[in-house]
């Protein structure tokens, strides 16, 4: 679920920045938008990674430790 939603959010940012870039014809603003988009995508990926670490890994570790594979 995290994968699906973070992918959807990233695609939303890509599409929105593409739409914005179509309306902007200044090279400087285009470069600024590119850097903003890159930073935002990195941050969303970091948020996704942290969420996966905090949500999924403890569950998997518990499954391995208890040797009972429960996918809750």
């Amino acid at each position: 679920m995290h994968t699906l939603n973070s992918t959807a959010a990233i695609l939303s940012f890509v599409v929105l920045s593409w739409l914005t870039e179509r309306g902007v014809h200044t090279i400087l603003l285009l470069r600024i938008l590119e850097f903003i988009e890159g930073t935002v995508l990195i941050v969303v990926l970091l948020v996704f990674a942290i969420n996966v670490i905090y949500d999924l890994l403890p569950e998997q570790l518990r499954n391995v430790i208890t040797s009972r594979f429960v996918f809750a």
Partner: protein
Amino acid sequence: MSSRLDSFLRESGKLYILYLSAGVAAIPAGLIYALFAVNGYDRWWTAVPCIGLGFWMARETWKYLSLRLQKPIAPVIAINVGAKGFGVRFTAAAVVASAFVVPAVPLPTWAAVQMTQNVAVVWQGHFATTQDRNALLPSLP
């Protein structure tokens, strides 16, 4: 009680809003880094603090919204004018006055109602369709 599909869609929507809000919260940090970069300072020692700032703001937004999205929507409180604030005499006077004023207000003619176009015509307790309205047109005032 919500169905499983309803609660799945609701939780998915909340998660999508959380991810999108985290990204929106990182935009100022991205703008700061972009201003660094277009001025020639696209170095690791500018990128790392900006990404850190963006991640911190995204995390704060995530913490705030993940609590806020659990709260129910506040109900709309309808104010009962007659119950409090105005007193019995004022309410009675307003009711008596309206008995004189309301009949004096001219009702719109059917032509005037027709001019608005977006009006729901109710006849004998039913919402009339456009065809009903056209059929009733000769008999209405």
